[in-house]
């Protein structure tokens, strides 16, 4: 078989049906082989390689499968990097294939040459440059294995043009044997016992749930643990959807734009049981003032996540679901106590709230209305990054895991729209909505053509304030209202732009039109772009100012 034939055969063996990409000189051999198998795959041709990586990422997050993308050498590959870094920071399994110049020309500054394995080394879980066609099948097998096991992440395979043309025997290994890579899934029984004991001894426990629970599929076990021992639960941005939003034990999201009561729970608790979370600075606030009274138990599959940012007293390395299953029978039922009462009082005192208006559209209201209009359907929400992301996290109620796609770690503007392309391809049954800002949407607006070409009925809701809103908010609050380089009121007519691409565009300028517009958009069988003209200087509150402690929140009081 030729390398290109091996490539296609390996994709089939890995169960890849859908993938994303953009051709170019160095990958013509691979695309030529794909052409012979066109009906066996659904290949989504994007309009910019960055979108291919984000789409593979959105596909992976929405389905739990490995996302695949492909781009050519040089600029094709470098365009993928933002998407790869985004996936890396949020532990998303993708395999990226890139073309490379002929092996004999590597290092000669050839046309469209870039040291792609060098460039992507710090943003991939692992990467490969294929130097011999005989290694290709093994490498692809390993790439998929590494991407989806342990703490998942992106793996890149760089394939020189001549490798695609070279011939060898096809031999797909049954098993992967990597002596340097053996992820550990089963938690240490003694450590699990120590967690159970810590819960028993604790007066004020708190479950702090992160994206690892989504990846592991441990949300049911988390709920059982919380209910058995009456432990309040806070879920990070990455874990929204893992705990029922209306549950009495639920505290919502913690951190910079989290709820006051989740943050107060961190300050006052005496035990944190962290599951698949990594004590990110956006969650902890000022690290020295974080959880001053708490003993910390940390369940995580990545040993390096433990004691990285805070000192952990009871580490348990392994898979969240397996560990929680071991832990559950060891935990004694714990009746509600004054801690639960205290938390209920905080929840009553500091509800998440905003001041609505009957003359100007408030972004929080738009998000609430999108929720109301979609809550009875299978809905996947993608966001961009900035205010749109935080308003969505605060005001959309996520009931199931894998229904929020958002760039949490890297904070990539332009992620949401291409991620929704991936999600819609992976979940054709679901309603997919991208909640965007007017800044972010313009970072990958070219994908409107992809959506049209591939018949993806994605709805886009732009919360349009004519500003790079989150930066403007920081400038307003902490930089003396010096609005440096954030006014983007000069922008296209988004309705006409949508129409130019052949899709429905809507402009919503008054609060009374919001709900009807959403309903109308949802009725439309094809993609729709909604341009919500919102209050220009609305802020995301409450907020922990950068460098402050979690209890030093500002704004957002009723």
């Amino acid at each position: 078989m030729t390398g290109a034939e091996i490539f296609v055969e390996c994709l089939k063996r890995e169960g890849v049906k859908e993938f994303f990409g953009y051709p170019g000189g160095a990958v013509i051999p691979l695309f030529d082989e794909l052409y012979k198998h066109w009906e066996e795959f659904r290949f989504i041709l994007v309009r910019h390689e960055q979108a291919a990586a984000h789409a593979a990422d959105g596909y992976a997050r929405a389905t739990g499968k490995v996302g695949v993308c492909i781009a050519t050498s040089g600029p094709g590959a470098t365009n993928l990097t933002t998407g790869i870094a985004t996936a890396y920071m949020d532990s998303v399994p993708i395999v990226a294939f890139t073309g490379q110049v002929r092996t004999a020309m590597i290092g000669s500054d050839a046309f469209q040459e870039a040291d792609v394995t060098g460039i992507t080394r710090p943003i991939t879980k692992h990467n490969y440059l294929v130097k011999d066609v005989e290694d290709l099948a093994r490498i692809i097998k390993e790439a998929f294995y590494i991407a989806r096991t342990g703490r998942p992440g992106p793996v890149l395979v760089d394939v020189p043009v001549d490798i695609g043309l070279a011939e060898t025997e096809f031999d797909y290994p049954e098993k992967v044997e990597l002596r340097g890579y053996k992820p550990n899934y089963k938690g240490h029984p003694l450590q699990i016992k120590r967690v159970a004991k810590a819960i028993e001894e604790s007066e004020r426990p708190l479950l702090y749930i992160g994206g690892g629970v989504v990846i592991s599929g441990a949300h049911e076990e988390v709920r059982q643990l919380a209910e058995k021992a009456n432990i309040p639960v806070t879920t990070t941005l990455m874990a929204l959807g893992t705990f029922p939003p209306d549950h009495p034990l639920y505290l919502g999201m913690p951190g910079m734009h989290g709820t006051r009561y989740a943050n107060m729970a961190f300050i006052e608790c005496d035990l944190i049981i962290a599951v698949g979370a990594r004590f990110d600075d956006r969650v902890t606030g000022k690290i020295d003032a974080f959880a001053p009274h708490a003993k910390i138990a940390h369940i995580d599959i990545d040993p390096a996540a433990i004691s990285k940012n805070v000192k952990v007293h009871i580490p348990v390395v392994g898979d969240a679901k397996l560990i929680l299953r071991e832990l559950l029978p060891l935990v004694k039922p714990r009746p509600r106590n004054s801690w639960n009462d205290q938390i209920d009082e905080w929840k009553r005192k500091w509800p998440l709230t905003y001041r609505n208006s009957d003359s100007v559209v408030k972004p929080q209201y738009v998000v609430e209305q999108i929720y109301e209009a979609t809550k009875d359907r299978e809905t996947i929400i993608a966001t961009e990054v900035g205010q749109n992301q935080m308003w969505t996290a605060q005001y959309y109620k996520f009931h199931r895991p894998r229904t929020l796609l958002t760039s949490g770690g890297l904070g990539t503007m332009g992620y949401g729209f291409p991620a929704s392309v991936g999600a819609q391809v992976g979940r054709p049954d679901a309603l997919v909505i991208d909640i965007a800002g007017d800044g972010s949407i313009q970072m990958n607006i070219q994908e409107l053509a992809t959506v049209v070409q591939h018949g993806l009925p994605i709805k886009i809701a732009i919360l349009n304030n004519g500003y790079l809103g989150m930066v403007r908010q920081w400038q307003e609050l902490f930089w003396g209202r010096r609005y440096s380089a954030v006014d983007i009121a000069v922008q296209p007519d988004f309705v006409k732009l949508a129409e130019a691409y052949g899709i429905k565009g809507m402009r919503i300028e008054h609060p009374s039109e919001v709900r009807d517009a959403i309903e109308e958009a949802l009725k439309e069988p094809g993609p729709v772009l909604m341009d919500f003209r919102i209050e220009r200087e609305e802020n995301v509150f409450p907020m922990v100012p950068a460098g402050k402690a979690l209890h030093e929140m500002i704004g957002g009081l009723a």
Partner: protein
Amino acid sequence: MKHTIAALVENRFGVLARIAGLFSARGFNIDSLTVGETEDPTISRMTIVVEGDDRVLEQVMKQLNKLVDVIKVSDISSQKFVDRELVLIKVNAPRSRRSEIMEIAEVFRAKIVDISPNTLTIEATGNEDKIKAIIGMLKPFGIKELARTGRVAMLREFRGEV
């Protein structure tokens, strides 16, 4: 505090870059790094000396362990180990002072590996203290050039109290 880390890694191209890149990306300083093939030609051994407190060390070890090409990592400075470094020192040596320098070399069991009318080049091996001492002794003569290999280290086989 200085720590000596021994890492067994796949003997493949790009592995050194991966490890060096990890150190720079995570803001860890490398004092020295040596690498060479082991008794198994598919495995290389790296000896890395890093400066840092226990938390830095713990992160370094964990991050190294995460690399797919890294097979085993151990902090050997927490146990009994032997370590050696080789150094080449080119020192000013006018005829009048040559014997003095050669005497010093002898004390340190070092070898003279090159000689010219005005210089001697000395090869010395030893642990850090010994290397430091011979450099200190030769400094007054004027060291023209100095090349160090960095530390290689190995756990002692007999680890009981003697």
